[in-house]
Each structure stands twice: as structure tokens, then as C-alpha cells.
């Protein structure tokens, strides 16, 4: 093995080694000092973030073109590690308060982040599959972290069964694509399509099966059924991490595979993506309106946001729009990630100590008791809705703009209308916090408050200076994808 191969995967390898050692070290840390495990876990993620950002600007393939490190992978790896860091900060307080401080959380979270990073660097369908499993298996267990709480067990088993089902689709699709192109490397598949040696019907079925598998992961309608139960049952910090991590990893795979390996199929898949995106936006937003539980509401909201992002994958066939639309998807992932982590941080703080479900009503009067948390939550809800000048507005702006540029005005209008619907349930949260009698109690732990406030600031700053993030996303595509 040439050393350069290993250097390419240094951040992932480091994180995996760190996570394994953390698992061992934790066994010898006494029960009162488990904070050390949390700090070590965060340190591992921070070092990984440093290592991965050092790779910005370079482009290299390794292990016989199975992995590729380019700005795209670094961009997403940064997102994953940061999401992991925030999740640890939120989780430490929440897990202690709800009596489920299980230190396996930290190792499993690190494993999952490593899987997501591997996914963003995957250039071979075998690696895509393995990364999908590596990021999912820890998430199944994290969803069940609060076992024997019934909701957590239910969420874990549903997530596991449907996740395994989705993996089956990915695997079958990979097998058919292998049959059609005699290879699993994305570059090889592209070459085979261009030289005309690929068996087209097989390839199309394979690609469609891959799409089904990934749609499960990003929770696109009609493959979204698991989302509300899992988001509701899993411990809130885990849900927060899952809502951005698993989704972004799914989109990483979609973008890599569908823009790198199948650009010539993009035209055929455009209508499918368009239908998926439209359905996902409408169903997600409409179903969220009637939810009593805020966890279920945010679950449907996460489905709706997956729909917005799917819109960016529709115009891939048009080379003049492809780069802009993929960049807007990346921008939206970051914006959505910050907002959703923030919202789940607030929920983690508000959650009852028995770890049961949290309803929208539980937030009533939060503004009087915890003005900072309430203010932060207001920012997140407004950003989700897409109110200027917050980051969420610009995220949607870029997505709708590229959809219109790509000639999918109808889709953009559907997106706009469903956003209007979404305003109803997001604003209801704000009304609850500010105009209802005080009932809410919340954690006074400074860590969680600081995290929420910092994330709210990020939403504001990215909203005031939106072009920087979009330019970064464009650069992320400059030396690799599209």
C-alpha cells in the first residue's frame, strides 16, 4: 500500500482509530468522570475537522480509485464533523438530565461521522454501500439509546428494518449496474456509458433502485414513512444529528452517483426527481401542520426540506445550470443543518426529564423563563420558514432560482406555496413561546444555551452575508463533481 493511499483517507482513518480507542478508554473511566469521554470524543472530531480541512484544494484518488478526496468531500466532511461536535455538546447535558447517559453514544457517533465522511469521498459503489452501512448501523443503535423506553425501542426497530430494506435496494441496484457496466467504480461506469458498452436497460433499473435506496435515507416521499416515528422516539440530540447527518450523507451519495456516474441519464431521471421533489415538499409540509408533538412536526419539516434539496437534482441534465444547482443544494444542506441542529438543541433543553415526547404546547411561555432559548428558537423557526434576512431565506432563494433557470418554474411555485403552508406551523411555535402562559421549564446548562445561541448567530450571519457560503459551495464543486 503506498502511503499516499492512506494519506488520502487520513481524516477518516484517524477518526475510526480514535473512536475504537475511545470505546476502550471509556471502559476504564469511572462513572463520575464520564465527562472525560465526552471531551475526548469532541477532541477527536475537532482534530478530524482540522485534518480534513487541510485537504481543501487538493484532489486525489486512492485505493484503485475507490475513494476520491476533493473539495466536495472536504466540504461535506466539515459539515459532518461540525454536526457531530454540536451533537456531543447538546447530548451531554440532555442525556444526563434524562438519565440515559450511555457513553457508547460518543464512540457510535464518531463511527457514524466516519461513515458519512467516507460516503462523501466514495468513488465506487462498493464504498458507497459500505459507507451507507457504517453511518447507518450506529444510527440505528443511537435511536435505541433510550431503550427500554418504548418509543426509543420502537423508533430503533423501525429505523433498522426500513434501513436494512433500503440497503437491500442499494445493493441490488449496485449488482445490476455491475452487470450492465462490468464495474462498480463511478469513473468506470461513466466511461462505459460514454463508450456505449453499457447495457442500458439494466443500468437504468440499477440506477432507479439506487435512487429508491437513497430516497429512504434522505426521507423523500413516498419513502418517508419511518421518519416521524424514528424522530419522535429517538433521544432528541440523536435526532438532531440524524436529521442533518443522515440526510446530508444521502444527498452526498445522490450527487456523487447521479452527477458523476450517470450524467447522461440525468435527462431520463429529471422527471422522476421532479415528481419526488414536488411530492416530498407538499406531503411534508401539509402533514406537519396537524402535528401535536414538536418532534413529529420537525420530522415532517425535515421531509419537506429534503424535498427542497431534491429540487436541485432535477436540472442536472442542463450543463449550464448543473453547477449552480448542485452548489445551491450544498448551501441548503449547510443552512438546514445549522437550523435543524439549533432547533433540536432547544428541544433537547426543553425536554422533560423522563425523556418522553415533547409537544408544541410544552414550549409555551418559554420566552419568559428562558429568553435566550426562545430567541434562538425564533431564529430557527423563521429560518426554516425562509424569512429574510435569515440564512433559510437565501437557501431557498438559491434553490428556487436554479429551478427556474433550469426551466422548472412549476416546481419552484410548488416549493413556494408549500413554504407558505409551512409558515403556519413554524410561526405557531413562536406564538406559543411568546404569547402563552408560562409552563415551560428547561435545562439551565450553559453548554446547551451557548450552542443554541451560537447556532442562531450563525443563521443570522449567513443570512446577512449569503454569497460567501454559496461561493464556497461553488468552489466545493470546482475540482471534482460536475
Amino acid at each position, binding site marked *: 500500500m503506498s502511503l499516499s493511499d492512506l494519506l488520502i483517507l487520513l481524516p477518516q482513518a484517524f477518526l475510526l482509530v480514535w473512536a475504537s480507542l475511545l470505546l476502550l478508554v471509556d471502559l476504564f473511566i469511572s462513572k463520575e468522570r464520564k465527562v472525560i469521554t465526552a471531551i475526548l470524543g469532541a477532541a477527536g472530531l475537532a482534530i478530524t475537522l482540522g485534518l480534513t480541512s487541510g485537504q481543501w484544494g487538493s484532489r486525489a484518488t486512492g485505493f484503485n480509485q475507490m475513494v476520491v478526496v476533493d473539495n466536495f468531500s472536504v466540504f461535506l466532511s466539515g459539515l459532518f464533523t461540525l454536526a457531530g461536535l454540536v451533537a456531543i455538546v447538546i447530548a451531554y447535558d440532555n442525556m444526563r438530565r434524562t438519565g440515559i447517559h450511555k457513553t457508547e453514544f460518543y464512540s457510535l457517533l464518531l463511527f457514524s461521522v466516519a461513515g458519512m465522511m467516507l460516503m462523501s469521498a466514495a468513488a465506487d459503489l462498493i464504498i458507497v454501500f459500505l459507507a451507507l452501512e457504517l453511518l447507518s448501523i450506529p444510527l440505528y443503535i443511537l435511536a*435505541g439509546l433510550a431503550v427500554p423506553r418504548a418509543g426509543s425501542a420502537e423508533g430503533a426497530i423501525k429505523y433498522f428494518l426500513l434501513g436494512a430494506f433500503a440497503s437491500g435496494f442499494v445493493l441490488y441496484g449496485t449488482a445490476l449496474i455491475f452487470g450492465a457496466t462490468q464495474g462498480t467504480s463511478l469513473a468506470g461506469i461513466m466511461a462505459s456509458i460514454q463508450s456505449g458498452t453499457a447495457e442500458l436497460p439494466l443500468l437504468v433499473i440499477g440506477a432507479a433502485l439506487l435512487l429508491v435506496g437513497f430516497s429512504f435515507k434522505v426521507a423523500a416521499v413516498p419513502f418517508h414513512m419511518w421518519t416521524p416515528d424514528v424522530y419522535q422516539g429517538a433521544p432528541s440530540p440523536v435526532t438532531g444529528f440524524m436529521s442533518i447527518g443522515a440526510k446530508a450523507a444521502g444527498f452526498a451519495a445522490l450527487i456523487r452517483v447521479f452527477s458523476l456516474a450517470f450524467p447522461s441519464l440525468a435527462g431520463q431521471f429529471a422527471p422522476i426527481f421532479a415528481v419526488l421533489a414536488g411530492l416530498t415538499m407538499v406531503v411534508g409540509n401539509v402533514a406537519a401542520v396537524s402535528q401535536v408533538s414538536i418532534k413529529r412536526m420537525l420530522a415532517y419539516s425535515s421531509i419537506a426540506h429534503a424535498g427542497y434539496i431534491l429540487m436541485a437534482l432535477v436540472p442536472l441534465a442542463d450543463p449550464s445550470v448543473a453547477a449552480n444547482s448542485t452548489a445551491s443544494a450544498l448551501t441548503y444542506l449547510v443552512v438546514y443543518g445549522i437550523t435543524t441542529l439549533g432547533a433540536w438543541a432547544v428541544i433537547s433543553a426543553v425536554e422533560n426529564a423522563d425523556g418522553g415526547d415533547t409537544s408544541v404546547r410544552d414550549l409555551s411561555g418559554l420566552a419568559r423563563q428562558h429568553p435566550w432559548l426562545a430567541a434562538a428558537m425564533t431564529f430557527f423557526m423563521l429560518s426554516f420558514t425562509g424569512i429574510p434576512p435569515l440564512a433559510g431565506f437565501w437557501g431557498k432563494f438559491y434553490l428556487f432560482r436554479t429551478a427556474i433557470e433550469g426551466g422548472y418554474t412549476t416546481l419552484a411555485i410548488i416549493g413556494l406555496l408549500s413554504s407558505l403552508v409551512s409558515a403556519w406551523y413554524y410561526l405557531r411555535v413562536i406564538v406559543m413561546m411568546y404569547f402563552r402562559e408560562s409552563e415551560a421549564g428547561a435545562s439551565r446548562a450553559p453548554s446547551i444555551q451557548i450552542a443554541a445561541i451560537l447556532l442562531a448567530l450563525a443563521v443570522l450571519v449567513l443570512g446577512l452575508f449569503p454569497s460567501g457560503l454559496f461561493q464556497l459551495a461553488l468552489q466545493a464543486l470546482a475540482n471534482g463533481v460536475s
Partner: protein
Amino acid sequence: MILDQVIFLITAVVVLTAAILVVSVPKMIHAALWLILALAGIAVLFVLLQAPFFAVVQVIVYIGAIAVLVIFAVMLTRKAMQDDGPQLNRYSVLAAAVSLMLFAVLTGMLLSWDGANNLPVNPAVNPDTIVNLGESLTNPQGFLLPFEVASILLLAALVGAIYIGREHRAGKEEE
């Protein structure tokens, strides 16, 4: 070739029948036993595909270990032997329609592919498949990365299994 085809057809019938029985017999323990037959049939199919190593793996891992696990899991449940509740719920018709549609689409598209009608007869297969496998699993230019990632996957699954499988006494340990 004729012998191969006869064996294949018999095995296919056995596997499909067993698989249908797995999901249709009312008692779970019986379903688990039928599953073993289906898995054994898959091992025969691997032999027919000239992949003896995978046939052995199929027997060791699936029949030897996973089937045992499934039977244990069935015996963990409350009504291992007398589960005779309804087999279908109200979505069964819809599910059957969707599955049939998917099956029809996949079969139709596969049949429209000319490769399905003129498959290569007896392609040359290296007899030393296990040697090739060993070489490619340890070759960095082969499948070294998936090989090592697989071991990480096993580790994550191990941690998860122990975490979930431990006896959690509801709320007592934590408080």
C-alpha cells in the same frame, strides 16, 4: 449443461416454495425452519455458479449462525409456538399490488435486454477462486479498503448488539 439446468430448476422450486412458506406459515418457529431450507437452496445455487467458497460461507454463516440466531430470537418472543394471529393487515392488498408491479417492471426490463436471451455459455472461471479472493482482499489496488471497512462495520455491529442485547432493567440502573 442439462444436469445443471435440472438441478437449478429443482433448487429454484425448492427455494421459492420455502421462501413463500417462510412468510405464510402461522407459527414463527416453522417459518424459521423453512428459512433454513431456503438458505440451503441458495448454497446450492452458489455451487451452480461455480462459487464454492460462497457456498461454504452460506452454509457456515447463514445456516450455521444466522438461522440459529433467528430461532433464538423466535424463542425470546412471548408466544413462540402458539402465535396464530392474523397473517395479513389492512395494507396487504396494497403491498401485494406494489410488489407485483415492481416485479413486473423489473422482469419486463430484464427480458427486454438482449443479454438475458443469449447469456455466455460456461464462461471460463478460474478454479482457484479462493486464492483470487485472498489476493484481492489484501491488495491495496484491489479490495483492501472494503475489507478493512468491513471489520469496522463488524465492530460497530458488535457494540450495538451488546448495547441493545443487555438486560435493561427499566429505569432502575439509571436512577
